[in-house]
């Protein structure tokens, strides 16, 4: 029973924390630009505002346009039940493994891209096309990273991976793991629309990827999409944090370990957010047609990860 409670609590925590995480990255970036910046909780205010605004829908759009935000949100939230954020093992661990996670996220992307095409705006189509390109090219890297992890853990189920890594800490520092981490980090940047692949703060339609798709959205639909994007960032951070550096994740489900889990999770988030912020300050956006090069680099990293796991087995 406690497991199910924890499962729901974990999902709720993810939902609640996600906008703050985005705010944190933004705040850190502002500071790195020598700006005062908005506080980390600014995204909550924006979401709140959007939920209370009117929705304007294109006259060309169909029901798909209105259904897509819910699909995106639901699929993303569903993932939070499968990803170990605080504790393992959780009862839903067997419902889906890492592959399910990846394809659930793809489900969201799929519908969002369709929604981008629905109003018939050229920007939407452009965004959809680019988003799907990036998603498709990121896919093999994710799969290989999974392969590398699954090899050493003997399972693709996330709880299993975390538990196995905890019991055999040496694996976390193996070259396979490190390479896989690097590969997955690049994929995280791509999947969550971060620099150098996409600039979340751009105003120029022609350079957009994710933003271009959702140019038509407003009000609560926009809020759901933004929120889902934030949750997606949190999911990837959790994967990076907990799969590769699982320490801190509660395995005993006692209050004490849970507190430690929350604390360690926050610490990991801060570190990762800092890394993203520093990176985004340091580098410029890539030209769209050079993005595949970056992704293929990450693919090579992942491939090296797998082969090294094989050879060092």
């Amino acid at each position, binding site marked *: 029973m406690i497991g199910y409670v924890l499962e729901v609590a974990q999902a709720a925590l993810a939902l609640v924390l996600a906008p703050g995480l985005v705010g944190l990255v933004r705040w850190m970036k502002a500071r790195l630009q020598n700006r005062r910046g908005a506080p980390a909780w600014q995204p909550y205010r924006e979401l709140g505002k959007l939920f209370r605004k*009117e929705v304007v829908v294109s006259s060309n759009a*169909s029901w798909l346009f209105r259904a897509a935000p819910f699909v995106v949100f639901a699929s993303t939230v569903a993932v939070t039940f499968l990803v170990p954020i605080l504790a393992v093992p959780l009862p839903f661990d067997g419902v889906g493994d890492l592959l399910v996670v990846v394809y659930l996220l793809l489900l969201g*992307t799929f519908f969002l891209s*369709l929604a981008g*095409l629905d109003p018939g705006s*050229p920007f939407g189509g452009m965004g959809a096309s680019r988003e799907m390109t990036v*998603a*498709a090219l990121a896919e093999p890297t994710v799969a290989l990273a999974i*392969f590398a992890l699954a090899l050493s853990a003997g399972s693709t189920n996330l709880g299993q991976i975390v538990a196995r890594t905890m019991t055999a800490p040496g694996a976390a520092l193996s070259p396979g793991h490190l390479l896989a981490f690097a590969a997955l980090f690049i994929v995280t940047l791509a999947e969550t629309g971060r620099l150098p692949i996409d600039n979340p703060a751009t105003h120029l339609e022609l350079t957009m990827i994710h933003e271009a798709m959702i140019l038509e959205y407003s009000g609560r639909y926009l809020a759901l999409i933004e929120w889902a994007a934030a949750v997606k960032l949190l999911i990837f951070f959790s994967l990076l944090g907990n799969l590769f550096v699982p320490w801190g994740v509660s395995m005993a489900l006692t209050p004490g370990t849970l507190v430690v889990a929350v604390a360690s999770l926050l610490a990991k988030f801060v570190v990762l957010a800092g890394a993203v912020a520093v990176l985004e300050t340091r580098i410029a956006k890539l030209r769209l047609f050079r993005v595949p090069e970056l992704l293929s680099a990450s693919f090579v990293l992942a491939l090296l990860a797998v082969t090294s796991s094989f050879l060092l087995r």
Partner: protein
Amino acid sequence: MAPAPLLLAVMLAGYAAGALAALAARGALGRGLVAGCALVGALAGLLLGAVCLGAGLAPTFTASFLPLTGLALRLDGLSAFFLILIGVVGAAVAVYGFGYTEAYEGRYSLRWLGALLNVLLLSLSVQVMADNALTFLMAWEAMSLSAYLLVLTEHDQPGTVRAANWYIAITHAGFAALVAMFLLLSAGELTTSFAAMRAASLAPQVRDAAFVLALFGFGAKAGVVPLHVWLPMAHPVAPSHVSALMSGVVIKMGVYGLLRVTIDLLGGGPAWWGGLVLGLGTVSALLGVLYALMEHDLKRLLAYHSVENIGIIFIGIGAGLMFQSYGLTTLATLGIVGGLYHTINHACFKGLLFLGAGSVLHATGTRNMEEMGGLIKRMPRTAFFFLVGACAISALPPLNGFASEWLVFQTLLGGSAIPQPEVAVIMPIAVAMLALTSGLAAACFVKAFGITFLAIPRSPEAEHAHEAPRSMQVGMVSLVLLCVGLGLAPFAVVPLLGSSLAGLGGLAPTAVAFTLALPLHVPGTFGQMSAPLLALGLALLLALVPLVLRVLGADRRLRVADTWGCGRIGQTARMEYTATAFAEPLRRVFAELYRPSRDLSIDFHPASKYFVQSIEYRSEIHPWFERVLYDPLLHGLRGAATRVRRLQGGSVHLYLVYMTLALLVLLTVARWRT
């Protein structure tokens, strides 16, 4: 046991009656009879398969009907599975065809269309039950021939005859290989019965040769790269319900044959067999989807996706064969089960997609996606069905495509069990390629669905499109339900598939014990997942989110306005993103592969070059294997033909010279022969 002969008789009678009725009756009655008889036959076949698979029976039927060897039928698990496959798609296609062929009335010969459809179904059903080589080959050629003639239905359309020629040429080359293969296997055994082939002990070289021939023959039918060239030509020009049947079932006979021969008759082989199948599968999957991305002809796009999905099926089977060669029978069964699962899944969703494309074609009269758009409002049901198919083929959970791809992934992950790392390393590469394939497939179907159904119509035909008639909808709905059902119930389907393979050469004597609990737990290896719970969760969340929003008092105002286009005045279809544009980024990424030829011509205003009057952009992609593989072949053939033709030069003296030379040579041989 008792119902099996009865069901078999009903099935055969149904198809035969359908074929005869088609020739006899005309008009709506004729179409109805064709559809009804085919439906009866298909359902009987479905039941027959289900009964045998469920009860684990393997009844045999023989008749001294065919010369030389007699007709021999045997229904084991594998046959039963494929009977179910034929039944499922056949039934949907039959019902759909009733409405779809109405538009053919008066334009094309409905008699032959109906008769051949039934003959095709009949030959397919007989083929999967064949228990000797002659029965198999007869049914095989009957299938090829009827499919070929069905492709020719719209023979007055450009490209149809050419497509049919390519189809029959490649499929016949494959057939020749199959004849050789079976006769090699029968090793002088004149009855060519499969039982004798199983028992025969052949030299390794002969086995290898038989395998390569089988791979060629069945690969040609299945449309594996580089033997797939006929597929994107023939599928689009066939009537859509025939395309659905061809893509859903006919090409699957390649899969059936490959399994029957390599697993059952040959009992598996060395690791390179599996490696070859796996490699071909990987290449097919990737190239198939990459070429699909560049297609703007909706049915050609789907046809290329058939290449892709056959590739995925081959990946599963290839991995299974490899594991089998290393004695890892559980993993081997798993891989083949994955392949089979994807086989039936592909039959359902590709059948559905072709039927959907057929409805679109029916409504708009064009297959060119660039002339569609906005159909979701004009034909909402078809759009919804197509969307389900698109999601399924893109392997999105919780639909069926995901379940089988997941299984294939899991099999490949088991590759670490292979003792040789340098061999095992193939598996992660296959994993990566499979992942890339499914990502690209999703991109492709965003394009296919988005450009076809969404936004505003790009042509008057699309503007005035109408919803498909009821019978066509019924055909599609049945497949939609199957896509969902197969996606939700892997826990039930997988053990069934496992039992269908039970006891086939070298595989585990009984079905692998997949637990019948909710999660699909893959024994001995990597992951588990639960499709029903996943679907339930998604459904709950989808229902909950709007509810919570309402409870929390989110704003519910909604206003309809123009599409935002930076304030420009009036939106026309020409401003929309096109399919070409959608695929452009990927075309650049894979430019090395596509080697597109671009042709850009700009007309300037006579007064100033700053005013452009028109821009014409044409770009074509020539698949390189046609250039590298088929052109030299055709060239060589034509060259040889020209040289041989020169022999018949018209001079009677020359002819007499041939004769005299032949005489002298043969006399020399005869005189000095020891």
